[in-house]
């Protein structure tokens, strides 16, 4: 077909967590520009299976940019060259025939490799479990319109809540910091009246868990914001830092 591409892939292969891992080179032919990056990997895997080799393991699920499961580090950038896009929504029209594409897993101490390109991001779940919620049991709620919430606050809260938990922010950061992820959740609740009762405790608990998981510190380079597929703003980190300092100063539990 006209316009189709031939590419060279350099893909990280690692049998399991304890394997050292290495790059393997695979040529792929006749790739349509309308394919998504993951569909191009489907083609590669189909070929590997037919050749009697092991396909490349990678995480993916919804393939419409919202579940946050896909996680490839492409040519040195999480989710590849485009901004505001997950790997599953990256299409091959962003590449040209003859390109060599290097594909690695997220690299962070807190995200150990499971196999090939799939990593373990359960640290994020543990951070949420430490405080990323509003403690309201089912059945406790008042009428939804009983507390009006200004549109600007609601919109800002939503903008923070759009985080898909993919971990690109960590992968992009030279310190493998999770501050953007954690601050997005803290901001979502800090901007809402419902989030106020636990505001101080939430930030203290979540930051403590973040540190315990082995994520690095934030040095404000902004790589996380630049690579975030959902455009989560760096200003969330500033809000979290303010809340954190405030909570430490005012905490009764010293």
């Amino acid at each position, binding site marked *: 077909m006209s316009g189709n591409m031939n590419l060279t892939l350099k893909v990280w292969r690692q049998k*399991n967590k304890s394997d050292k891992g290495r790059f393997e080179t695979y040529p792929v032919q006749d790739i*349509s520009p*309308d394919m998504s990056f993951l*569909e191009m990997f*489907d*083609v590669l895997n*189909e070929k590997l*299976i037919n050749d009697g080799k*092991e*396909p490349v*393991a990678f*995480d*993916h*699920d*919804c*393939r*419409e*940019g*919202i*579940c*946050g*499961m896909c996680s490839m580090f492409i040519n040195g950038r999480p989710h590849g060259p485009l901004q*505001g*896009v997950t790997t599953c929504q990256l*299409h091959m*029209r962003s590449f040209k025939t003859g390109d060599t594409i290097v594909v690695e897993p997220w690299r962070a101490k807190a995200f150990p490799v499971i*196999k090939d390109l799939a990593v373990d991001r*359960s640290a994020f*779940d543990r951070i949420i*479990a*430490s*405080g*990323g*919620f*509003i*403690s*309201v*049991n*089912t*059945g*406790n*709620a*008042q*009428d*939804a*319109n009983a507390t*009006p919430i*200004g*549109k600007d606050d*609601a*919109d800002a809260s*939503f903008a923070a*809540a*759009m985080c*898909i938990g993919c971990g690109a922010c960590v992968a992009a950061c030279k310190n493998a910091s999770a501050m953007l992820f954690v601050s997005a959740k803290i901001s*979502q*609740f800090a901007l*809402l009246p*419902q*989030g106020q009762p636990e505001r101080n405790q939430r930030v203290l608990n979540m930051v403590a868990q973040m540190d315990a998981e082995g994520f690095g510190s934030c040095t404000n380079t902004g790589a996380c914001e630049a690579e975030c597929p959902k455009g989560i703003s760096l200003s969330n980190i500033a809000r979290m830092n303010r809340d954190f300092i405030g909570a430490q100063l005012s905490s009764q539990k010293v």
Partner: protein
Amino acid sequence: MSANKIDAKIPDGALEQKWTKYRSTVPLVNPANKRNLEVIVVGSGLAGSSAAASLSELGYKVKVFCFQDSPRRAHSIAAQGGINAAKNYQNDGDSVYRLFYDTIKGGDYRARESNVYRLAEVSANIIDQCVAQGVPFAREYGGMLDNRSFGGTQVKRTFYAAGQTGQQLLLGAYSALQRQIGLGAVSMYTRHEMLDVVIIDGKCRGIIARDLISGKIERHTAHAVLLCTGGYGNVFFLSTNAMGSNVTAAWKAHKRGAFFGNPCFTQIHPTCIPVSGDHQSKLTLMSESLRNDGRIWVPKKKEDAAAIREGRLNPNDLKEEDRDYYLERRYPAFGNLVPRDVASRAAKERCDAGFGVNQTGEAVYLDFAHNMKYKYGKKEAAKKGITNPTEAQLTELGKAVVKEQYGNLFDMYHQITGVNPYENPMMIYPAVHYTMGGLWVDYNLMTTVPGLYALGEANFSDHGANRLGASALMQGLADGYFVIPYTIGAYLSNEIRTGNINPDHEAFVAAEKSVSETLQKLMSIKGSKSVDYFHKRLGKIMWDKCGMARNAEGLKQAITDIQQLRSEFWSDVRIPGDLNEFNPELEKAGRVADFIELGELMCRDALNRNESCGGHFREEYQTEEGEALRDDENFSYVSAWEFKPGVDWELHKEELKYENIKIAQRSYK
């Protein structure tokens, strides 16, 4: 055939009183006993997460399983448009009864009255709960919640968070779940797949699961098991479901005695991005909410359609009078907001007649230009006091509003197709989206296996033959937050003396052995074709013969073809890698094996149902105008299929009684 094997256990009394009375009289379990009762929840979407969190809050010991790396990835996350609730915040005449009525009618009179009424009753509580959890729904400037319209209704009752409502609701339920995990009250098993249910003395007592990283087969005991595992649209290979969405948990339960309800009821969603080529792995939905503001059309003249297909004509240049807004023409009362099954069939009809607008001839336009300019543009211009705005000004002003409402959907469309939808009409075509069928459940949401429940899309219960938009999220959360916490007591109150279940019971040993043997068998085939090869073939059979239109001859052929495919699969599939490691191909193989069996049942069910209703359109049964022609005399029942060894089935029927609604031919004209 027998009718007595199934009992829907619908409470007595007037419709409006059933749930209230039931809730007030259902047996309770005291807190001390709850601590000793184990509940397993399989699946962590809206139904699973909300059920797990709520049951844990009540004091039960809960274990949750999901195949993804985190419970937050479940496919509920991808729901876009919104969630219905009978709040009547708009003062536009909504009520519990009206939501109930719209849902029954939308389902083409094939849903159970009592369940649907309960759903409508608890709908308002869901919104309250979600707001309390910090779900940032869209709001108006005064701080009140905003609503939008969805198909099949004439009120605005849909709550939303841009085009990411499912994400926000799931993250709400997920945080409630994570809170319980943090408290040590729920044990979470991610990257685990349920591969069998274990039945002891006729009761469900646990599951067999595979740790997807190590490949280890595990036994997990429970006093009740909740399957919240979603729908089976991926039987078609191409659908809007996530790649991992599968029927396996429900299917294993089916093979252990849970009847399968209305398997042929599939929802084909009218507004999806059309198929672009053979490489395609999934289809992407463009939310129904877009039909609020998008007008659907094809050219009036075939020669214009041909010119557009060949790239000789730009659709923007086609004059207004040369466009056929066929939904507005055929259904003036509901227009672009007819229910999904009606909209899908109408699109197929136009494309089959030669009016399709993309290269494959299988696409129609969803066009925002008119509303962008005249609805929103004019409104904004008036707000800003611009008199005599130019056309370009109107477009510019309207674009900003559309961007706020649907920005992420427009971006997604742009990304996938490479075409800018702000400048050009979207091209859309129907695609498999949701399955109304599922495990048969009674009023308590219990399957025909005592102690085994099905919630959310995994059950058949609320949507009849066609689901209305924004009702899946409502049902998932209703089942999990507000139904199961009550109904499970009816069963567990009799289990307080059972004590711990023994994982070494012979039933567990036998189930584990059978799971291991099936996996070993799959690995040992070492054939020549990949799992996807078989999945794609199955999908093609299903789409061609059991898709948007079905007929007896095609369905019979499909059954033969699927049986042939099944034997080929079990003799020629190739699965690389090992049993005891992270092996996505092996996972897929098990799921496709189950899809193949399910596909046959869907065709048998479609063949049995000699009528058209909702999403089930049998070509032999249609009105002169091409609308679905129901046969209430003979088919006003739920098909509940019992699995028989050797891949065979026996049909049971649950007669549907309409005591509160007068059934009529559905009309949206």
